[in-house]
């Protein structure tokens, strides 16, 4: 085992490592890429603004500016209604970073360099997703802390609260898979950003995230009631505040599984073909 690893580690040695070593290297390469991505994230002030300050601003704006005008039928008032929604939106918007980073790396030739190296083929995408999941988790924790400071409370116990946070992370990773695909397929950071706005704003705002769907016009309700973001956020809301969970949970799980099944292979294919 060690001998195999050492031979594979000798630079330029064309010896192909065996399967266990390959798995180990795939993990090691993924961690290396993750580490690189996290260092980059911490060094760019603009990224910190997008991942921390923007979501916090959303919480404060909806809580204090729009909140008073939005009547909800939820124990604890609008702030309790808002927080699951804003966590879902925060998780989804974290995927902007995924798409933009991959598009930039593609344009600058970084992905070409990595693809021409004898590293694990899966590591660039996996490392991106792991780093972005970490980044998203930090954001979610901060947003939750701000939510607590402005009056939000979990009213359904610790277990469901943890499940809610997990669901928001899984949801965010699913959206990151879509964004990884769009980032690699479009390959230009500005176009990718514009495209992200075009689809992410509607699907998050035309949902139950910020307002009760019953206040929307009928034709819009038809869309908002039957789209995955609403299923996920209704599930999160029920987990946080109590209420029937099951129906929406299964719908959420089905949608999220569908997104992974469709977009993971698409993202991998886009990475392989990237040019």
């Amino acid at each position, binding site marked *: 085992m060690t001998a195999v690893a050492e031979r594979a*580690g000798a630079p330029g040695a064309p010896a192909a490592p065996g399967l266990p070593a390959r798995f180990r290297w795939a993990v090691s390469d993924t961690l290396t890429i993750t580490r*690189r991505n996290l*260092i*980059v994230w911490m*060094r760019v002030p603009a990224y910190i603004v997008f991942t921390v300050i923007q979501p916090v601003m959303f919480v404060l704006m909806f809580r204090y500016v729009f909140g008073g005008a939005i009547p909800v039928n939820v124990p604890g008032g609008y702030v309790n209604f808002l927080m699951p929604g804003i966590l879902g939106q925060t998780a989804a918007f974290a995927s902007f970073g995924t798409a933009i980073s991959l598009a930039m790396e593609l344009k600058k*030739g970084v992905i070409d360099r990595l693809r021409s190296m*004898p*590293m694990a083929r899966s590591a660039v995408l996996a490392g991106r997703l792991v780093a972005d999941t970490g980044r998203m988790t930090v954001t979610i924790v901060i947003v939750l802390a701000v939510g607590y400071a402005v009056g939000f409370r979990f009213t359904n116990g610790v277990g469901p609260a943890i499940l809610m946070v997990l669901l928001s992370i899984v949801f965010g990773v699913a959206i990151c898979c879509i964004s990884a695909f769009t980032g690699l397929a479009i390959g230009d950071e500005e176009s990718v950003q514009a495209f992200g706005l075009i689809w992410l704003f509607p699907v998050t705002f035309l949902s139950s995230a910020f307002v009760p769907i019953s206040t929307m016009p009928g034709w819009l309700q038809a869309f908002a009631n039957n789209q995955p973001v609403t299923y996920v956020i209704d599930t999160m809301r029920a987990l946080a505040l109590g209420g029937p969970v099951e129906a929406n949970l299964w719908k959420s799980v089905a949608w999220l599984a569908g997104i992974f099944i469709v977009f993971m292979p698409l993202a991998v294919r886009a990475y392989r073909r990237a040019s």
Partner: protein
Amino acid sequence: MSQVDGIGGQPAILVEGLTKSFGDVRALRGIDLSVPRGTVLGVLGPNGAGKTTAVRILTTLLLPDEGRALVEGYDVVRQAAAVRRSIGLAGQSAAIQEELTGRENLEIVGRLYHLSWPQARSRATELLEQFGLTDAADRAAKNYSGGMQRRLDLAASLVGQPKVLFLDEPTTGLDPRSRLGMWDIIRSLAADGTTLLLTTQYLDEADELADEIVVIDHGLVIAAGTAEELKGRVGGDVVEFTVPDRGRIGDAVTAVAKIMEGSGEAGGEPIADAETGVVSIRVGSRGSDALVETVRALDAAGLETRGLAMRRPSLDDVFLALTGHAAEEEEPGGRRRGRRGGKRGKDMERTAS
């Protein structure tokens, strides 16, 4: 395995009948290359000739439509992983992570080549030293000059100690001083025995660095040989001057046309540009003799000229001679296009295979 035993006398790079199309665009229309170990091949051609496509196929980034390519005896399609263990690639832009320091960039590449952390660190230090980046090692790469970024990029391509190195236009966009620095580095890599494939748009660069040159145009190898051989075909050096009085360009052409007559050299007829007043004539290897005769001929004809000089043939001259059209496709009609498809161009296409 068998492929390891079998590569003894094979060239480092072997390409046969490689084609690649993108939709309707035929980027490569069947190219053949053979690069012996430890030599430098210069691939010369204008933008869009197919140079980058060829490099991308050879570095396993792109699949060819037809033909085959072997690097260090490994097939780039079927044995891509083995190819990747043998090669390094430095592309047209600096493929580095700008937010990271030079050292971090190299260490991470080292880790991805499966060096241990201490190995990756010492390899990074070694390369930073070799490329004159030690002082800048701990600064973010985004604060590097263009030349430093390209050197870092080249250093990154060498972390895995590749046997074959692909350099896609390594000096494009660099200032003259950085360009010379890059040439020195490339020369020392070649001296260490690394096989190099280098694409360029500049004839002087290929001339300086390459043992062999192939000229690519529209996805075909249109000529191959040493720099001297190619220049021989082009007609050697070029004497060039400007006639300020546009009305006398005809006289100037008549005057200088005589200097190559009866010399038995593969020179050329003078070419004049009526708009700019630039007259040029290929003078083969007659060099300074031809220059002196030009001065005399112009003087005898009582012509006033500016900027009389002898220069080495440029990529444009090579293309003009080999293909009958200029390297830059935007060139409007005129004299250059007029020669397209001429007899000479066709002869050269034959030479290629």
